[in-house]
């Protein structure tokens, strides 16, 4: 187990695509970090740089005190002492379970007896005790992923890397393995970097979540902080499905453009500056009235996930207890919103809910 440090890491692919830009990341020993972000944001690139499959074009990567990449150094993956679990198919179909799990120990020239002991131990750990002789083809998807996990853990890696390790599984199974993964890594005190598309998975598992976009870390924080104080409209929208509204600041209040919406604003901006407000679904209440129409409602155990059209603005709302029906006419109360100085780039990338 060890800490992982990325200093100023950039990576440009041969075709010119910028995979990572100026990444600074300190992962403490034993910490569980999740990387989320839209497709193409660089999550896999970051993970594979740590694993050693990609070499940064600038910056340094360290595990513990050992420099793995940077300058003229580039330690190949096989010498980095890592464990890694892939999204799919990474259990070798031509070997049985024990042979699969044993492989890292063979490479490390561990003796036969010791190998047997540790394979049994690792399989026990992932709940597959006694599966040594099984052919991977006879295992279910979840069992295979557990074999991959056992293989990643058996050689006591310094860091565990997970690239969408749970994404290929069906939901109930994913849910179960998520729990197991958490229990296991906490018990072993492992340092983990976990790449995922699934926002609730990232929030559920990680000590800190890093939100990537276009090769940069946009925010890295504990789950609670991310939800409550998103650092940018992008993060608010990506993580919490916030509705983004363009407008301007006037007399300490945010006023939406062409829309009755006005909100208190604690941002100290000169009057008249353009600003963007992020309205979190949980900060909106639906009350009786008739200036908005319910377009869609999805059932959740706690309430409903509702989309309303409100004076031409499409607003996402999360209710508690109350379950409006499609077509209902309602009124909308926005409790508060996070207001940011206007960022044209973000507005261009993600269609903001500008009132039509």
């Amino acid at each position, binding site marked *: 187990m060890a800490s992982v440090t990325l200093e100023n890491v950039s990576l440009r692919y041969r075709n010119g695509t910028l995979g990572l830009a100026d990444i600074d990341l300190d992962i403490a020993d034993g910490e569980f970090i999740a990387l989320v972000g839209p497709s193409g944001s660089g999550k896999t690139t970051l993970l594979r740089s740590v694993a050693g499959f990609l070499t940064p074009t600038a910056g340094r990567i360290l595990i513990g005190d050992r420099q793995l990449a940077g300058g003229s150094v580039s330690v190949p993956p096989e010498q980095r002492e890592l464990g*890694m679990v892939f999204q799919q198919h990474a259990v070798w179909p031509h070997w049985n379970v024990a042979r699969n799990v044993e492989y890292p120990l063979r490479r490390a020239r561990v003796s036969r007896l010791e190998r047997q002991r540790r394979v049994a131990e690792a399989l026990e750990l992932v709940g597959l005790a006694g599966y040594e002789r099984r052919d991977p083809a006879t295992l279910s998807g979840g069992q295979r992923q557990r074999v991959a996990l056992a293989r990643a853990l058996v050689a006591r890696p310094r860091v565990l*890397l997970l690239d969408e390790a749970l994404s290929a599984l069906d939901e109930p199974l994913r849910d179960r393995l998520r729990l197991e993964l958490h229990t296991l890594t906490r018990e072993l005190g492992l340092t983990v970097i976990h790449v995922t598309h699934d926002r609730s998975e990232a929030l559920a598992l990680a000590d800190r979540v890093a939100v990537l976009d276009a090769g940069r870390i946009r925010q890295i924080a504990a789950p609670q902080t991310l939800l409550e104080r998103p650092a940018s409209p992008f993060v608010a929208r990506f993580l919490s499905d916030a509705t983004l509204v363009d407008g301007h600041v006037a007399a300490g209040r945010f006023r939406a453009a062409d829309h009755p919406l006005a909100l208190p604003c604690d941002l100290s901006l000169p009057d008249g500056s353009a600003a963007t407000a992020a309205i979190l679904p949980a900060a909106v209440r639906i009350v009786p009235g008739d200036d908005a129409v319910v377009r869609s409602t999805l059932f959740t155990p706690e309430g409903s996930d509702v989309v309303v059209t409100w004076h031409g603005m499409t607003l996402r709302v999360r209710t508690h207890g109350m379950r409006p029906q499609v077509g209902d006419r309602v009124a909308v109360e926005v409790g508060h919103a996070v207001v940011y100085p206007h960022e044209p780039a973000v507005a261009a990338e993600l269609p903001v809910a500008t009132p039509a």
Partner: protein
Amino acid sequence: MTSTPLLPAGSAIRARGAVRRRTDGVDALVVALWLACGGLILLPIGALLVLAGRGDQLGVLLHGDVLQAGANSLFSATVSALAAVVIGTTFAVLLDRTDLPGRTVLRLLALSPLLMPPFVGAIAWLGIAGPTSPLNLWWRGTFGAPLWSIYGADGVILLLTIHSYPIAMLIVSAALRRIPTDLEQAARISGAGPARALTSVTVPLLRPALVSSFVLIAVGNLADFGIPSIIGLPERFVTLATLVYRYLQSGTVDDPLAVVATIGVVLLVLALLALVADGLLARRGWELDSSNAVPERTPLGHARVGVGAMMWAVVLLITVLPLLALLTQTLLRAPGVPLTWENLTLDHLVRAVTTPSALAGAANSTMLASLAAVICGILGLAIGVVVARTSGRAPRALGAVAMVPQAIPGIVIAVAWLILAPSLGLFNTPWLILVAYVTSFTALVVQAVAAPLSATPTSAEEAARVAGAGRLRALVDISARMATPAAVAGAVIVAVTAVRELTLSVLLLSPGSQTLGVAIFNFQQAGAFSTASAWSLIVALVGLAVIGLATRRTS
């Protein structure tokens, strides 16, 4: 976000581990494979080019005979390849996508023409549709003229088709398995009947496979010798391959070797053009989602019995009938005697399996074919793995080089090796035939290996890297091991092809030795048709059994 300071373009350091990666075992492997391919493939081709470059052969090439033969070759090769693709595709679709009765047996039978040496097939078909086949005799007796004689262009095309459609069937089958059934079902739901779903969705998606198999077959048929020589010559249908033979036989040209090499180079260029065209066309394929759904079989419904009966009839006609013809020729006391019980004898069969030279040939062929299978298997596996699993120009070029000999007629490869043999100390050793086999057949294994490997994700090796294996180690432990079954399948095909090979070994044999193909051909040339038939029958049946066992094990 666009204002971040980035590395200057063209910075010395580049991504993707390109930074001063030390040369490792994989690089050594690539170099070793280049050496092997250089010695086994580029060397003989070079010898051929040198030989062809001697003197001015242009006049020969523009000679009327050559042009006519060239036209005949192109004609018979393209028409037969087209027909083979149509038949092969039909069979593949029926066998893979419908609930046809008796599919397993049908598939095995339908593959059997692959096992029969083309010249043996030609001999067998003479017994069926030759001018004196029972059918033609009866027809002549009744209507005054034979129904259809196999001699001539039509017969050549028919036999080339019969002997090459299994290749199309194999390629199309593999491609079919990669097309998700969802796509057809989406068409059904959209209102298309089964046949229309097939023609508007499945067949267009098969295009790359259809093009590849067409090119592969056309190139192979361009080089075929046995069929045009037995079926084509009696009706004066001369192709480039038989013309090569004629130039060697009759001293009508001044420098036969140079002329033959020149014709070989022409065929080589034709084949290279075809392969390039295939590369361009096939590259424009579609990325298909992998479907984990079990391919659905379309029930044929009321047509099941009808289609099934037709399919069985056709397959029996083109596979079992020739075997029966061989059997009759084997058992008949003498050619021309009527088919009655008294005229049946096992003498020829007994004589066939007791003739020492033929037995020695069989033993020799078995030895050479097994060695060739092992060497081609290992070499093809290594090349296939390197081609499919490493990036860079050197490995890709390696793959292309390995495929080239497929296009060169056996007799031309044989001439090239014969020229080289004395300087390599291989003259009059069985190893000469072995290297020629390896030159010709490695491509079969490369092909078998590369296709499934390129479909498996790279994470399989990356997992091994992270587990502590170096690049070469990961390649050997993971990719090579995973591709081994495919390589074994390829090697089995090499073995059954090599065991009855004729055109290479007929020139490369050392005195006192023999191969099975040559032995059969000699029997036939010496007028011992019954003995030739007996051996052909044995080869075909043993081949069927081997393939049957091999496919049973893998399925």
